């Protein structure tokens, strides 16, 4: 006996497929027009600059005096800033999330402060008050970079914490006998991998591109070093600028790839690069 499923007795006579108004077409065209125009605007200066600089200036960039030194300085500052920022922010943010949820808004507000004070103004004030011994060393820059990095690092860490069920994880860990430090080190940090990766990327990008404070503090970091060619050799300047851009891309891409592979292993999805650049206060979720 056939299953009872057809209630229709008339044979089917529809000629051809159902016609649907083609609403998709106009939207698709318009989208590509915009993207093409945008692409042109962004690629054109790059392409012409590349043309202008020629390929030879690329290789000679490496041989210029001060290249290695300035790059090394920037790298050191990047590492220093990343370490300090993360060591400072991660435990604090976790603590506030866990124990003092009311202070979350305050914390967010505090981390927005650095945005309100432009680097140019900040360096003005810093040079005013910093003790001489600190002013003479390059570490002052690193310390101040931490301030600049705070809003972005906070956003990334906060996003990562919200994705975890923080309370449950810590309670589970402590019920199994783990102390505060162990919990942090073995349970929370591994699960925050993606967020920490995002934060690191942002910090590194920031340090490698920061010019204002470094130049006025008279330290030759990589971005500052690039400018020096301005007077001597225009082609070299442009070549060095392009090199800086490509190098930053490569580094960011590499970090993203490593991060994504790692995240996929732990099942936490891809590293969403740069979504943390949005600074936002949300209505507190009670």
């Amino acid at each position, binding site marked *: 006996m056939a299953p009872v499923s057809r209630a229709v007795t008339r044979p089917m006579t529809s000629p051809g497929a159902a016609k649907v108004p083609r609403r998709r077409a106009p939207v698709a065209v318009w989208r590509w027009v915009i993207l093409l125009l945008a692409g042109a605007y962004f690629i054109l200066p790059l392409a012409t*600059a590349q043309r202008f600089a020629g390929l030879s200036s690329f290789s000679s960039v490496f041989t210029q005096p001060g290249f290695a030194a300035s790059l090394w300085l920037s790298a050191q500052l990047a590492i220093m800033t990343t370490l300090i920022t993360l060591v400072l922010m991660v435990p604090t943010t976790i603590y506030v999330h866990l124990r003092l949820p009311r202070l979350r808004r305050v914390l967010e507000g505090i981390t927005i402060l650095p945005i309100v004070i432009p680097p140019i103004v900040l360096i003005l004030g810093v040079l005013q008050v910093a003790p001489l011994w600190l002013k003479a060393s390059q570490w002052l820059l690193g310390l101040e970079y931490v301030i600049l990095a705070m809003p972005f690092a906070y956003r990334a860490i906060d996003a990562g914490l919200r994705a975890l069920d923080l309370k449950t994880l810590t309670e589970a860990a402590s019920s199994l006998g783990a102390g505060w430090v162990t919990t942090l080190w073995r349970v929370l940090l591994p699960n925050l991998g993606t967020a920490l990766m995002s934060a690191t990327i942002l910090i590194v990008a920031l340090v490698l591109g920061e010019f204002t404070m470094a130049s*006025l503090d008279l330290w030759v970091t990589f971005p500052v070093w690039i400018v020096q060619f*301005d007077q001597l050799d225009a082609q070299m300047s442009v070549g060095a600028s392009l090199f800086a851009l490509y190098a930053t891309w490569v580094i960011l891409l590499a970090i993203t790839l490593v991060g994504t592979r790692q995240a996929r292993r732990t099942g936490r999805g891809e590293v969403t690069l740069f979504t943390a650049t949005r600074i936002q206060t949300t209505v507190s979720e009670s």
Partner: protein
Amino acid sequence: MGAYIALGLLIPLVAIVAGAFQDSATGAFTGANVSIALHGTYLTGFEQSLLLSLIASVIPGVLGLLIAYAIFTSRASALRQVVITVSGVFANFGGVPLAFLFVSSLGSSGLITGWLSDAGLRIYDHGFSLYTLSGVALVYMYFQIPLMVLVILPALEGLRPSWREAAENLGARGWQYWRHVGGPVLLPSFLGCVLLLFGSALSAYATAEALTSGTIPLTSIQIGSFLNGNVIAGQENVGKALGFGMVVIIAAVMGLYVLLQRRAAKWLR
């Protein structure tokens, strides 16, 4: 962490505010610095900076929104990821390298300028110049537009498809949906993001400096020149007054931004 911020941020800030109201020679309280900062070339500097920031925030705001919408409605997630990553890099790309890029293409002896000239179009004769306010604004767009794309995307993603479908089901055409639902819901976020761009443009220093080397009065560059020692005697603290003014403006802008974001979050939950 609070201690760190206090040391690294607040103390310099206090120094600036204090210095703004101090006579550089005697240390006595004075309003003269602030007064100077609000007149003459410094006033022009503020005006030009505000104008530049306005242009370099509203236009990229609209353009960024269009681009974000274009990728948001696309089904290809690869396209979205590419655009997001690219935006992230360009949003952080500024300062001197960016200036060089544009100078080498659109500067008075740039390549593109040359090509156009060969084709018969001398743009510099027609009033275009990379070294004026509009030229600087054009260069600013290079990082402002990607920044806008990044910050407006989450708001676009907050627009639920069920709203669009419900509106359609009730008889609304595309533009009616945007007029009655999509637009109003997106507006606070949009305005907030434009404000963010405004603050970003106002704070920018390196790009403008590299392009113009001080030929256009802009507040951030003027502050920089104080650090370089180009100061008139007796006016050393005017730089701090300028800095103070800048902080006040940006604080107001960010305050507005926070308010708008709170409003948006209520609806976009």
